[in-house]
Every structure is written in C-alpha cells, then in structure tokens.
C-alpha cells in the first residue's frame, strides 16, 4: 500500500508561520475582533517602511563612509578560491571528520527535539486534555500551562543556550546537543500539538467512547493520520539543526564550524571553500532525504528511513560520546548553584539602562535591516528559482538561482559577517547584511516553494481573456503569493532577531556584542541582564510580528 504525502515545507511551516491554518489555534476562545483588511495591511506596510528607514539612518547609511575600498581584493580572493578548494588528502580527511561531528550534533539534537516534541506535543494538545465525553469543550488547566511554557525556551537562541550550558555542564558534547534540543524541542512540541489537534476528532472520540485510554486512543485514532507530517517536520528540523550545529561549532562545539573558524583565521580561502562545499553537500543530502520522503513517502520507504535514522543516531552517539552522567552528577548541581549565585542579581552594563535600551534597539534595527534585505532579494530569487520552466534558458536561470540560495544559506552568518568586515567598517551594518544574506538563502527557498505551489487557475483564466503577461502577474500572482511572502518574511524576522546574537559575537553590534564582551570578562550578572534583554526583544518582536501576520489572514 502506498500513501502519498502531499504536504511540503510551506504546508508544514505554516504552524510556525501561522498563516494558512485558517482559524488560529485558539478554537476554544471567543473570536477575536478581526484585525485585517486592506487598510490595516497598508498601515503595517507603512510602519515597516518607516522602521527600515529608521534602521538605515541609524546604521549610518548615507551619512558616513561605510565601505572600506581596500578590502575588495580580499573579497575577490575569497570568491576566486571557490574554483579551487583545497583537496589534499590530509585536509579532506579533516573536513570529513568535521562534517561527521557537525552531522552528529544535528542528528542527536534533532532526535532529542523530536522526542521532546512528541511527548510535549501530546501533553500540550487540546485533544489530550479534552474530557472523554464528546460535546464537552472544557479544557483542563494543564493544557494552558503547557502551551504557555513552550514560549521561553524558543525565545533564546541556541548559541545562548550553549553559553549557559557550558558553564553548568562543562565542556562536553552534551552541551551542543542540548543547546539544539531545548529550543527546537519546544518549537517541535508546539507544531506537533497543533498537528494532533488538527486531525479529525471523530475517530479519537469514537475510540474513547468505546472505553480506550487516552494513550491508546491517540495511537490508534490520531497518530496514523498525523505521522507523515510529523516525520516531514522532523526532517525540516534536521536541516535547521545542521545550520545550528555549524554555528555552535564556531563557538566551541567543534566540527565544520570550528574548522571554518581556523581556516578563516589563517586566511586560507581554499580550505574555507572545501568546508563550505562539505556543508552544502551535507545540507543537500538532508534536503533530498526529507523532500524525497515528502514526495514519495510509501510505507516501505518510511520504514527504511526510520531504520537509517536509527543507525545515524547510533553512529552519532558513538562519535560524540556525550556524557549523560553529567546531567545528574553532583558537580553539575554545584555548578548550577554557582552560576545562579554568581549571576544573581543581574546588573546593568556600565552605561546603565540607557546603554541596554540603546543596544536592544540596535538589535531590533539589525534584524529589520537583515530581513528587509533578505526579503527583497528573496522575492526576486523565488520567481527565478521556482521549478517548472520549460525552456532551457529558463531552467538555466532557475539552476543558477537555486545554487546561489544553497550557498548563501550553507555559509553560517558569522562567516558572512567576517567576510563583510573586509569591506564594511565594523558596526551593526555588516552584521545586518550578514544576517540578510543568510536569511535570503532560507527565505528564497521557502518563497520559491510558494511560487511552485500557486494555484495556476486564476492566472490561466486571466490569460484566457487576453490579459498580457505583466498584467496577469500583477493581478493573479502577486496577490496570491504576496500574503504568504509577507508571512514568511515576518516569521524569519523573529528568527533573525534571535540570530543577531551570533553576528554580535564577531563584533557586529547590538546585544550580541555586549554579551560577548561580558562573557570574556566573566561578568555573569551583566550577562544575565543582557540575556533578559534579549528575551524581552524576542518577545516584543514576536508580538509585533504576530499582530502584523494576523492582518494578512
């Protein structure tokens, strides 16, 4: 028997993006006043333009010289090296080992996130907490508590988790795995809970009415329908984990990230390109595996994939050998107490509240600039990269666009930032551009998928009544794709706001830079204050983004 799962990335990420599900998850509550419509959307667009303009002005665009013309030769040398990566057997072995380490972190991190997501998703699903008697909608308090609790771990970037965990657990691979699994587990739990609640209720209620317990009712009546989507989402998370593992590698977890750092410090661009190609190969493999499963997911293949996944987890475990004992060991408890007492109470940076607020605003501005750049480029690239071209020039353009997107998202933002520092003077701008380039790769891919999945019928009907190409594009394609593009842009903005930390670490400004300064000075109370400011920024950005996205529905 063959089951075809038609859900692709755009479908799956809708739970994170919160656009396509129709009614918001809160079916239980009173309906919110509708805050959408053209005038509301126009107001949001205006707010966006003003905010980006303000960020540009603050970053000094047009006011001071930003470009260091002397750096272009270095940049040119970097790109020239793309054609001749270092292929000596010794370095290839190093790159291979590094790739294995990165993959191992990503695989273990994902496996743990999925486990957390599965248990957490069930426990925070509305279905689980609904009373057995059909027709009653009252929920138990556990549901509310559970849903609310997922927000905090998601608001903190993996790199910050790693920074905290390394102080508690010491230098151990466990840190990298947990740093990925904590935030990703939380988001996976939220998505899985929504998948479970989206499944038809009647089978679940029928099995419950026949006297089955909640666990077996879920296993029989809900999981079979939601499993394909859960598997696909796990693969999407694996790709995200790979990118995270590289970034964590740069700050101490080893693997491709660490090697990239070393190669960059030695300015050996050819080695950098070897590592970049390894990264691209690894992410492409994950992408192929996941999308192959999504498109042609027969039971046999799913089973085979599950076996391969299990083997991969085992290999990763053996390779990294994380020391689980540390989790519950006495030293950990002491260190946790030490860190807590050292960090409490949080103290403001030297320049007080003003400094903290200024840097928080700088962080927001960086994320705004990054996402403005990323979305502008991504919209163009999405149409260029969309599959379905019939002529060979069209296909060549699509191929070129796809490889550009692949490279831009394979190179982690700190590396982009370091490269940009050749030609841009230090400050928030290189950080913002680095994040923009990286998110361009991710957004362009998501948007290309939106374009591929557009309903062709409205455009065909306009074409049939004789409308010229540009008119068809502006009447059918733009309105149909526009709202989704905007939703993805807003979703990535939230992520970019958290990611400013990782470019801050290389001196690009904002709270991330402050955090790095405090870390090197062992200023724990200061770090705590900065992390709290980061969480506040993240929550504020989420709230603004969520209400802007509501206007798109």
């Amino acid at each position: 028997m063959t089951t075809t799962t038609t859900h692709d990335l755009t479908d799956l990420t809708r739970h994170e993006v919160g656009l396509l599900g129709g009614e918001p998850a809160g079916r239980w509550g009173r309906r919110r006043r509708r805050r959408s419509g053209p005038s509301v959307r126009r107001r949001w667009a205006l707010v966006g333009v003003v905010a980006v303009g303000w960020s540009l002005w603050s970053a000094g665009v047009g006011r001071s010289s930003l470009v260091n013309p002397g750096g272009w030769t270095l940049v040119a040398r970097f790109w020239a090296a793309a054609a001749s990566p270092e292929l000596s057997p010794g370095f290839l072995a190093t790159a291979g080992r590094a790739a294995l380490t990165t993959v191992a972190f990503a695989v273990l991190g994902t496996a743990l996130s999925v486990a957390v997501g599965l248990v957490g998703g069930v426990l925070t699903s509305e279905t689980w907490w609904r009373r057995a008697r059909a027709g009653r909608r009252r929920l138990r308090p556990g549901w509310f508590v559970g849903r609310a609790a997922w927000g905090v771990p998601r608001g903190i970037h993996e790199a910050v988790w790693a920074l905290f965990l390394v102080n508690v657990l010491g230098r151990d691979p466990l840190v990298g795995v947990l740093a990925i699994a904590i935030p990703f587990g939380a988001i996976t739990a939220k998505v899985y809970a929504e998948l479970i609640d989206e499944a038809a209720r009647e089978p679940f209620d029928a099995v419950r009415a026949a006297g089955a317990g909640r666990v077996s009712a879920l296993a029989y009546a809900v999981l079979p329908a939601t499993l394909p989507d859960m598997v696909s989402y796990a693969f999407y998370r694996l790709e995200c984990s790979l990118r995270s593992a590289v970034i964590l590698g740069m700050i101490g977890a080893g693997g491709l990230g660490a090697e990239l750092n070393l190669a960059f410090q030695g300015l050996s661009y050819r080695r950098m390109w070897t590592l970049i190609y390894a990264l691209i190969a690894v992410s492409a493999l994950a992408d192929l595996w996941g999308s192959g499963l999504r498109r042609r997911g027969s039971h046999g293949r799913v089973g085979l994939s599950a076996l391969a996944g299990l083997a991969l987890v085992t290999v990763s475990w053996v390779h990294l050998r994380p020391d689980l004992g540390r989790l519950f060991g006495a030293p950990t408890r002491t260190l946790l107490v030490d860190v807590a007492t050292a960090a409490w109470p949080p103290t403001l940076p030297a320049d007080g509240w003003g400094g903290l607020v200024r840097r928080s605003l700088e962080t927001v501005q960086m994320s705004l600039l990054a996402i403005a750049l990323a979305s502008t480029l991504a919209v163009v690239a999405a149409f260029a990269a969309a599959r379905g071209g019939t002529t060979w020039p069209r296909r060549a353009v699509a191929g070129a666009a796809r490889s550009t997107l692949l490279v831009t998202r394979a190179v982690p933002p700190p590396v982009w930032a370091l490269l940009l520092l050749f030609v841009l003077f230090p400050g928030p701008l290189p950080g913002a551009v680095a994040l923009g380039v990286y998110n361009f790769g991710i957004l362009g891919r998501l948007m290309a998928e939106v374009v591929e999945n557009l309903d062709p019928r409205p455009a065909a009907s306009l074409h049939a009544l004789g409308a010229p190409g540009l008119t068809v594009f502006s009447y059918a394609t733009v309105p149909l794709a526009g709202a989704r593009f905007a939703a993805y842009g807003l979703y990535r903005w939230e992520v970019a706001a958290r990611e400013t930390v990782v470019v801050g670490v290389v001196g690009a400004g904002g709270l991330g830079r402050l955090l790095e300064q405090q870390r090197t000075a062992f200023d724990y109370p200061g770090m705590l204050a900065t992390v709290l400011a980061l969480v506040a920024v993240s929550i504020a950005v989420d709230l603004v983004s969520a209400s802007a996205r509501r206007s798109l529905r």
Partner: protein
Amino acid sequence: MVSLRGVHVVYDGHAALDGFDLDVFAGEHVALVGPSGAGKTTALRLCSASVAATAGAVSVLGRDLGRASPSELHDVRRRVGTIHQQLDLIGPLRVVHNVNAGHLGSWSRFRALRSLLRPVGLEQARDALARVGIADKLLERTDRLSGGEQQRVALARVLVQGPDLILADEPVSSLDPARAEEVMDLLAEVVVDRHRTLLVSLHDFALARRRCDRIVGVRGGRVAFDLPADEVTDDLGHDLYRIEAGSRP
C-alpha cells in the same frame, strides 16, 4: 461562431478529443453533457484558445485558430468570456478587482496596474454586481464570500468583459440545487438580453434540457448525439452516462 471539425487533442499520449465535430451558431445556447473525462472541458478550452488542437480545424468568431497571428488570437480571447468554477477567482483581491479583471484583455498595462492601487470603473463594476444581486460586496475580499456569491462575481466579470461568446465550464457543479438554479437564471438573463451565444458544459441533464436550445452528448472524446433540447430523451442520457466494462470513468 464556433466550428470544430475532426478535432483531436492529445495530452501526454492520452486523447482528450478524438475526432470531435461541433458547430455553434450566433445566439444559440448549447449544452455539452457527458461523464467526467469525456472531453467537455477540453472542447471549451479549445474555443477560448487556451489549448491548441493536435489535428483538425478550429474556428472561433470567424478565425481559424490554427493559423491566427498572435494579435488575432488576442482579439479572439478578448471577445470570448469564460465562466469557470469559482476556484479561478483571485481570492485575496477585493471583489471589484476580480470584476475588473474582465477588462484586462483591453486595458493597457499601465491602466491595469493603476487600477490595483485605486480601482478604475467603480460604477460599471457596481452595476454589474447589482445585476447579479451582490452590489454590497464591491469592496469585500473575494475569498470571504460564499461559493454562490463567488460564482456571481465570476458572472459579473463576464458582464464587464462584454464578450460575444460565453463559455461556461460546469458553472454550478459546486452549488446546491437551489443556488444552482439561481445562478443559471442569472446566466440566462445575462446571455439573453445581450443576444449572446452560450456554450456551457453541465452535469445535470435536466438542467441542460430546461436551459438550452441544443444538447450535445459527449463521450470518449467524440460527439455521441447532437439534438434540439426537446428531442433529447432520458434514455439517451442513461446511455451517455452508462459505465462500460473496461472503460475509464
């Protein structure tokens, strides 16, 4: 108006039309009936110059589509209006733009773009919507309307386009019988008072007999019968929809 002679259309090795002949004269109302996959939609798409015939002669509004220049094809498209199922409307746009889309064959690109920012021809759009009974929906988002209302928007679009030939591809298949009857009433009104020609594909045999002058039964990519509506019997209908052993529905 329309003349199809021995037309073959082949998609991916599968013949959608297999020696199809049809004539529609000015002012006639003709229904195409037949099972799903019989080739009704393909026949309609030939007439709107959306697909090309693999073999045979297609002439619409006096032009041989096989030999028409791009500008002649454009002229035919402009003068042929198609009512699809409501799925072909642009959901996120306001109703007025979906109605104005009827103008897009004749508007310049500049005018079309400007209208998206500030709708042009509001009065005409409102009149068209008033004629189909939903003038108050002018500025609503199209995907917030019900299925029946969306079908009316599609009718209003054709009204604004003002074509000589109207093609309708199962315009009522997604509506309940009462709504279907209303929409067919409107369609008939729109067509009759401008003396336009109508070619409609329908599933509902009884509806076709009530509404059209002539009924063409289609089966397996060929014309099974072509008779005035009052000469079509129930038996003919049963034969048409009979499922043959080994045939694909």
